[in-house]
Each structure stands twice: as C-alpha cells, then as structure tokens.
C-alpha cells in the first residue's frame, strides 16, 4: 500500500468512490450536461468490471489522455452557453470520472476523496432543501466509508460503518458549536453564478399575466415579525413599481432605470421620511433568479450588511445587488404610512402621465365627462372606485381575452377580470384624467404559519394602483378590493370560492382536506420554515442576536469569554467521548460479571466477600444457597477463576464464548436468588465471620 500501487480486482474502496461519484452526478443532473452524466456511469461500469476481475488492467494512460483532450474540447465548446460556474462543475465531474478510470495509486484515491468533498459542496450551491441536505450528508457518510475501506481493507463492513457513524455523530455537536461561533463573513469576492430560470413576477405586466402565477403554490418568502404582524389588509408586499405604459402593458420605466443606475454609481442614497409606527421583520426569500425583493411600504433595510447588499430605490423598490440564486434572508423595517412622499414631484408626475395618443375612444369620452363632474382629484378617484363597485364587475381568474382597446372592452363590455385588469384599467383612467398614476406589482396577504410568521405563495401575487392625488405623494388604491373584498380580506381561495371557480384550480384541493393530511403538510411547511430561518438564513445578524441573548450587551471581554467557553465546551465534548473509555478498559467484562454475581449472592446471604479468594468464598456460601443458585454460582466462580488465574492465554473465540456463558449464568443466578430471596436471609451458619 505504501508503495503507492493499489490492488485492482476486489478493491472495495475504489468501487465505493466510483458509486459515490455516480450518485453525485445523478443528484447534479440539472447543472450537468447529459454526456457528462453518461461518462460517469461508463466509469462506474469500468470500475465494476475491474472489481469483478473481468478486466485485469486499467486502461492505458494514452487512452485516458485522448479522452481528456476530447472532453475538454467539448467542455470548452459548451462553456460559452453554460457560463463559468456550470463549466467548472462539469469540468470537476469529468476530471473525477477520468481519474477514476485510471485509479491505481494511493495518491489518486486520496485526490478523488478531496474532489468528492468539493462535489458535495457544489451540490449545496444548487440544492438546499432539507431532503437534499440529508441526501448529501448521507453521501458524505458513504464517501468516508470509501476512505475507511481504503485504510482498513480487512475490517468487516459492519465495523467500518459503525466506526464512521460513531464519528459523524460525535462530530455533529462540534460542528454545531463551530457553526454558531465561527464568524459568518460576507462574500470575499464575487463568484460566478449560474443562469437559472426566473420565476415569479415579470418585469412587464399585461392584463391577464398574473393569472398564470395564481396557479402556482410555490413558496415566495417567509416573513418573521418581531412583535405584531400587520393585518391582512395592510400586507401589500411591494416588488415592482411599473411606470411605463404603452397602451397594453406596464413595465419599469427605462428613464427610471437609468436614473437608478446613475444614483447607484454615485452612491446617492435616498432617505424617506418615516414615522413612529413600524414593523420589524426578517424576510427569507426563495431563489427567484431576479434581483427585486419584497417588503411592505415604506421599507428600509436594517443591518449594515443588508444596506450594502440592497439598493433602496426612489420608487420604493428594494433591489438586491445580485439576483437571488439561492435562499436569501434580509432584515427590514417597514413604516406603514398612508402616503409615500415623492422624491421628485415634477419628474414623477411627468413620467406618470404618459398615455398613448390614440385608442380606447369610449374610455376617453367617459373619463372626460366624469372629470367634468369631479374636478377635484380625490373626488374623481372616488368616483372611479364607485364605478367599479356599482357596475356588475366579476372577479375571475379566467376572464375572456381582450385584445384590442383593452380599457374599452374591460370597462364597458366584459367587466370581468382580476387584479392586473383592474389595476391596469384604473391607472390608465387616472392618467387620462391628468392624475399621475402607476401600477405596482407584488404580493398581497399571505398565510399565517405561526403567530409571527407569514408565508407568501405565488398565488398571492397581486397588482394595485398608486396615484398622486395631491402634492404630498403617492397613495395606494386597490380596485380589486372594491370588486372582490374577499380577495383582500380572506385571500384568493375565498375569493374564488365565492365566484364558484374554486374547483377548477387543483392547487387549492389541499385546502379542503382536514385531519392527518393537513397536519402532515402543515408540519412539513413548519419544518421547511425552521430550516430556512435557522439553518439557511442564519447570518451575522442572527449570530449577534444569539450572542446578545446569551450574554446581554456585547463587550470585547464577553466575546472572549464566549470564544473561550466554546473552546472549553468542545474540549469537554472530546473528553466526554474519549475519557470514559480509558477508565472502562481497566475492568475486564468477566470480572465485572463476577463482581455482580458476588454482590447479588452477598446481598441475599448476608455475607460480604471482601478479599476472600473466589473458591473459598464459594465454599462459604455454597451451603446456604439453594441448589440451583449454588450450581450457577459454582459455574460463575469456575469461569472467573479459569480466566483470572490460569497461566495460558485464552484466545478471542473462547473468551467471547465464556463471556456469553457468564452473562447467561449471572442472569440465571439473579433469577433464582430472587425466587428464594426472602427465605435466605433468615437462616445463618454459625461460622460466618464478618
């Protein structure tokens, strides 16, 4: 082994590591290219053949070099589409596979082990759920199994598994302590990220779009409040502010985008006026591939690291500097003010009055006549809302298609639609009337998971209107609330229930269920939340909170005490693991059984052994003991004496056999002593000396 060459046929460790790499390649199926996965399975086949002895030799180095050149050419070709991160992961898997084919040296094996650890780490880039975490930790166990097989080729596999499981279990508390106290530093440099499919709200809203989201029950984020949770009516989670309208769709204004970029470059922060009423909460957002975040107005990032990572824009959006590739936790304070001050009144009102010059003639006429009746802005807005409530508008997720002159069709003919229809139509009407208005998309409501935790799903997606009624700033209007109050007060499910559409949407089928299924699904949701919050979302801030909770106000002295304490805890754990075994080794199991037996006998006979030699002690008590107990004690004494005082070495097999016999006999002795226990203590021989 030390010579460096490994045996080929029957080498279990190589086979194990081959199986490990195939398993990991399967788990990374999405980021890997198909041919890479196939390559790993070919390698697995080669390794199995070598293990069973179908081949005698590993393929030559030349063959592998050729394969390596071909694969790297292929990788280079595909890397343009894949991006840096995926190319690197693919490269790592290919390199492992090729190394695996030629694996014949000690060094190769150990390198493969290190690469395996890295591959597990890469797995966590793509998957972070509880199930995948469990899977990857199981593969870690398997990887260590391969390693221990490498170093103990002749140990039975049960013992190997026992050794590894023991060590992993022992290492786990240490890992938890390290996880809690080691600093969670921010990114040291920018890492390549993968291009992932984007989910959730789109940057462009055409009436009818959000309906597709309504059919998804994917989680968008959890929000954990410190203190009270805002009421459902207040839970308008802003994601995007859409200011550009082309007659059909709403999108982020390019002008606003340019402005934001120039502000971001020059670092001109925007500070909104805030009031006293506030909500403090942490949002754990699921990966969306997009950079905007969700918060209740007016939201301000709390911690310094959040402020570094999140841009707080002048249209009250929160924008992350990097798209959300994985779960992301951030802390915000919201000031639920009724009006959002306009940072630049002239510019914003100009931007939010633009409408196409033609189209929707009927709407234009209607707006002109309504405006004559209500010259006051506030009155006009009220009149529009009254129109929505008085006309027979229907809230439905499956409205008819409205292609041309959307506002005309929607307001006067079909009168059926959902949030994006209402918001779009109302904002258009307000703009026609000369009131600056824009559409805001985001989420509304969300389920209460616990007392202070709100989970928001894709079907909570919503759109509403913001208008500048007077110079003070932006006010929120939600026409949907007027048409279907239940959508806002009780959520989409109830809104659909009242319109009789509920049965069409299978995602809500789970809602009607009760009992065990519901409990289990609730338990999973809870578990997922705890996982997201305490494992995936454990960051600098939570660490600080934890330290503060333990120690109170943090001072350098307390911090050093904490670090010292943690180190002591780890040493204590190590001592706990290893010290008792040092002590236990001093007493041999057979002796221990003998001592148990003598104790039981002396208890029932009333005669202590002290230092009496085993045989003479037996002589002393044999008369007093009942027949079967005496027979058992005789056997026990015999075995003990033969092990303790005989000169010959006893081999392991005999030792084990005697140990088992000893155990059975001691049990039998205890049974028979219990049976006679009461009678024994009465009669005593005269020659008993204490």
């Amino acid at each position, binding site marked *: 082994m030390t010579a460096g060459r490994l045996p080929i046929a029957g080498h279990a460790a190589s086979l194990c590591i081959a199986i490990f790499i195939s398993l990991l390649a399967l788990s990374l199926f999405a980021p890997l290219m198909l041919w890479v996965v196939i390559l790993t399975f070919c390698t697995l086949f080669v390794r199995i053949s070598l293990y069973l002895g179908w081949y005698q030799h590993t393929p030559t180095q030349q063959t592998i070099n050729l394969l390596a050149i071909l694969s790297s050419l292929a990788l280079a070709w595909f890397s343009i589409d894949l991006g840096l991160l995926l190319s690197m992961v693919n490269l790592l898997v290919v390199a492992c596979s090729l190394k695996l084919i030629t694996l014949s040296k000690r060094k190769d094996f150990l390198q493969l082990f290190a690469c395996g650890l890295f591959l*597990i780490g890469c797995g966590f880039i793509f998957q972070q759920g509880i199930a995948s975490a469990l899977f990857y930790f199981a593969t870690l166990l398997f990887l*260590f199994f391969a390693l221990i097989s490498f170093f103990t080729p002749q140990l039975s596999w049960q013992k190997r598994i026992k050794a590894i499981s023991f060590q992993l279990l022992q290492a786990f508390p240490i890992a938890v302590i390290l996880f809690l106290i080691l600093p969670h530093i921010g990114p040291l440099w920018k890492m390549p990220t993968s291009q992932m499919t984007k989910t959730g709200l789109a940057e462009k809203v055409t009436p009818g779009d959000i309906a597709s989201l309504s059919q998804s029950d994917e989680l968008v984020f959890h929000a954990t409040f410190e203190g009270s949770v805002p009421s459902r009516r207040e839970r308008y989670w802003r994601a995007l502010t859409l200011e550009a309208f082309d007659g059909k769709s709403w999108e982020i204004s390019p002008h606003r985008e340019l402005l934001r970029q120039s502000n971001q470059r020059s670092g001109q922060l925007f500070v909104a006026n805030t009031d006293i009423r506030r909500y403090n909460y942490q949002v754990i957002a699921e990966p969306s591939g997009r950079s905007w975040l969700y918060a209740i107005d007016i939201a301000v990032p709390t911690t310094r690291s959040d402020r570094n990572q999140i841009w707080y824009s002048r249209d009250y959006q929160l924008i992350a500097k990097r798209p959300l590739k994985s779960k992301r936790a951030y802390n915000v304070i919201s000031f639920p003010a009724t009006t959002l001050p306009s940072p630049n009144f002239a510019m914003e009102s100009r931007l939010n009055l633009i409408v196409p010059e033609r189209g929707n003639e009927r709407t234009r006429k209607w707006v002109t006549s309504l405006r004559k009746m209500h010259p006051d802005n506030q009155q006009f807005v009220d009149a529009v809302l009254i129109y929505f409530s008085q006309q027979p508008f229907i809230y439905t997720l499956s409205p008819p298609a409205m292609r041309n002159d959307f506002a005309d069709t929607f307001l006067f003919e079909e009168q059926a639609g959902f949030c994006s229809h209402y918001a779009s139509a109302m904002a258009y009407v307000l703009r026609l009337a000369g009131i600056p208005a824009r559409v805001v998309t985001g989420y509304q409501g969300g389920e209460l998971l616990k007392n202070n935790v709100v989970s928001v799903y894709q079907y909570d997606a919503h759109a509403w209107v913001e208008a500048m009624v007077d110079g003070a700033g932006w006010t929120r209007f939600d026409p949907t609330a007027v048409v279907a109050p239940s959508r806002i007060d009780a959520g989409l499910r109830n809104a659909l229930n009242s319109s009789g559409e509920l049965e069409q949407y299978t995602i809500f089928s789970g809602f009607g269920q009760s009992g065990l299924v519901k409990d289990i699904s609730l338990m999973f949701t809870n578990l997922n939340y705890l996982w997201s919050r305490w494992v995936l979302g454990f960051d600098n801030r939570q660490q600080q909170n934890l330290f503060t909770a333990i120690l109170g106000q943090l001072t350098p002295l307390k911090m050093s005490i904490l670090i010292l304490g943690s180190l002591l805890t780890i040493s204590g754990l190590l001592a706990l693991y290893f010290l008792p075994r040092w002590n236990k080794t001093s007493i041999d199991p057979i002796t221990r059984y003998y001592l148990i037996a003598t104790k039981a006998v002396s208890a029932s006979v009333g005669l202590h052994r002290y230092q009496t030699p085993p045989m003479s002690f037996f002589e002393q008590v044999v008369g007093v003991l009942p027949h079967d107990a005496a027979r058992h004690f005789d056997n026990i004494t015999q075995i003990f004496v033969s092990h303790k005082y005989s000169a010959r070495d006893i081999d392991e097999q005999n030792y084990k056999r005697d140990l088992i016999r000893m155990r059975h006999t001691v049990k039998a002795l205890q049974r028979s002593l219990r049976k006679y226990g009461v009678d024994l203590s009465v009669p005593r021989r005269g020659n008993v000396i204490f």
Partner: protein
Amino acid sequence: MLTRAKSFWNFRVDQWLNKRIPPAAKQDLTHRTIFIFPAWFGLGYLVTCAGLFILGANYQNNLMLLLFDLLLGIFLLNLFVSYLNFSRLQIKAQPLHPVFAKGHASLTIQFLSNNKARSPHGVVNACWRREKNILSIDLDSDNTQLCLPYFTPRRGVYPLPRITLYSEYPFGLYRCWTHLNLNQHVIVYPTPLACQVQLHVESGIGEPSATQQEGHDDFYALRPYHQGEPLHRVAWKNVAKGGDWVSKSFSHQQTETGYLQLIPTGTDIELELSRLCYQILKLSEKNVPFGLILADTRIEPSQGEQHKHRCLTALAYYPKKGNNV
C-alpha cells in the same frame, strides 16, 4: 558542514529517544512512545476544508459552512481516534536466531492488543529507522507476526537499530508513529570458508600435530547402518555374510580429542575465523567432539548442537569475550 550538522542532529535525536523510549523486548504503546502529527493527506484535507469555507462564504451558503464545520470536527476527533487505536498496541520481539555474515537476520515482531475489549484496527507499517523498506501488517487479519529482515554484512554482535512503526487508521488524516528499541542483539557468525580440518591435540602453542579424526578410536559396538554414514565404517564382514548393513561404532576417548585453534598468523584474522567456522560446522556434522581455543577463550571439547552454537558465538564475539554465552 551540512553533513556534520546533520549527524550532530541525528546524534542528539538518538540520545533523546534513548531517554524517552528506553529499550525493552515487550512494549505497550503509550503517550510517552507515540508521536502523532497530521499526515500529508491530512494537510490536503485541511486545504480542501479551507476551500469549502471560502466557497461557502462567497456564496453565502450555510450548508457549505456546516459541511466545513463537520469536516473540521471530524479532523479534530480523528486526532483522538488515531491515537487511541495506536495506543492499544502491544509490541513484542521474539528471540532472534543467530545468522552467518552476509545473510539476513530476521526480527519477528508480534503485534498484540493490550486491551481485551477493544482491539486495534487498520494497517501498521514497519521499517528499520532511517530506512526505506516498509513492510505492513493488517491488524484485522489473523496474522499477528511480522518478520523484518536485517542485512548483516559482517561478523560480530550488534544491537538491532530502532524500528519505526506507523499507522494511519482510520482516515489517513493523522500519522501515529513510534521508534521502538526492542532490545535485541543479533549474533553474526563468520561466513564459513572451506579448508582442511585441523584438530590440535593439546593447546600447546607451537607445532601443530594434525591428527586423523577417526583413526585412533577404539571399536565399541555395531549398530544399524544409517544412510549417509561413511562407507569405511560399514562392517563389510557382516554384509558379506548376507546380514544387514551395520556400521562400526567407536568409543570416543576424552584424551584423544583435539582443539580447534586460532593461529594469529598476522594475515587476515577474519579469514582465519571464517575457516574456523567452516571447521566447526564440519566437525559438528560428523559428530566429532572438539574444543575451541581463541585468544583467551577456551571451550572444552564436547559435541552437539548446543556446543556448536557456543563455539560459533565465541567466534562472533572475538576478540571480546562473550560473557553471556
């Protein structure tokens, strides 16, 4: 200069080792005898862990950090697991057989467990200290003995050097090792060199009176012929009569036996000792009693296996006196 510094360093290390791990034929591995340090692979493992930490920090990925912490925990635990496993070993040297010069002495080391409940596992590698030839034994197999060959180029009595034992159980992250002196001496006889057998009747220094060995013995008895006995001993008369093959046996008279003697001729003394060695072997093979006189060692004439080894050992010790022979 460098070699001098190196040899001085080696000398100091040896001195320190002699004080720390004194020689003994049977040794339990304890905290005094075991050295432990991360192996090269252990250092590589740490580098991999550091890589995972950086990756985890850059991706803000807590699971990667947790993996890093777990791996670090395992590394810490392994320090103890490796050490405890190695400390369950008991090493015992078996008595060494003498060898002829230019042959290989073989030291048999027995690996026992000093702990009945938990036996040591894994592969233990053994080699002579400062030498490269490594032999290994798997403690999980039935084999408990390892033979370490030791090349003996010259005649003499040598203490065996320290042996190095090391183990990388369970994950190869740490290397536990020890340098044991098992307190064994190897006795190296001279290489036999063919020559004429010369028995000197009495020890007088001067004219050597060469004698024929069998010539003067008295006839004693007949006994059945054994294959390989010299033909001139066969009682031909008996055979000619048609009887069984019997050979004549002679009584050995103490007074008639001679001594092998080292004659310091001033030429190569080793050559002379080699010749004596050959003669001892030859005489023992023929069951002829003989004595041996070296400078101031005198072994009275006798015969048998034990006597042979006594004489050969005297040769090995020459010019010193083998007190413990």
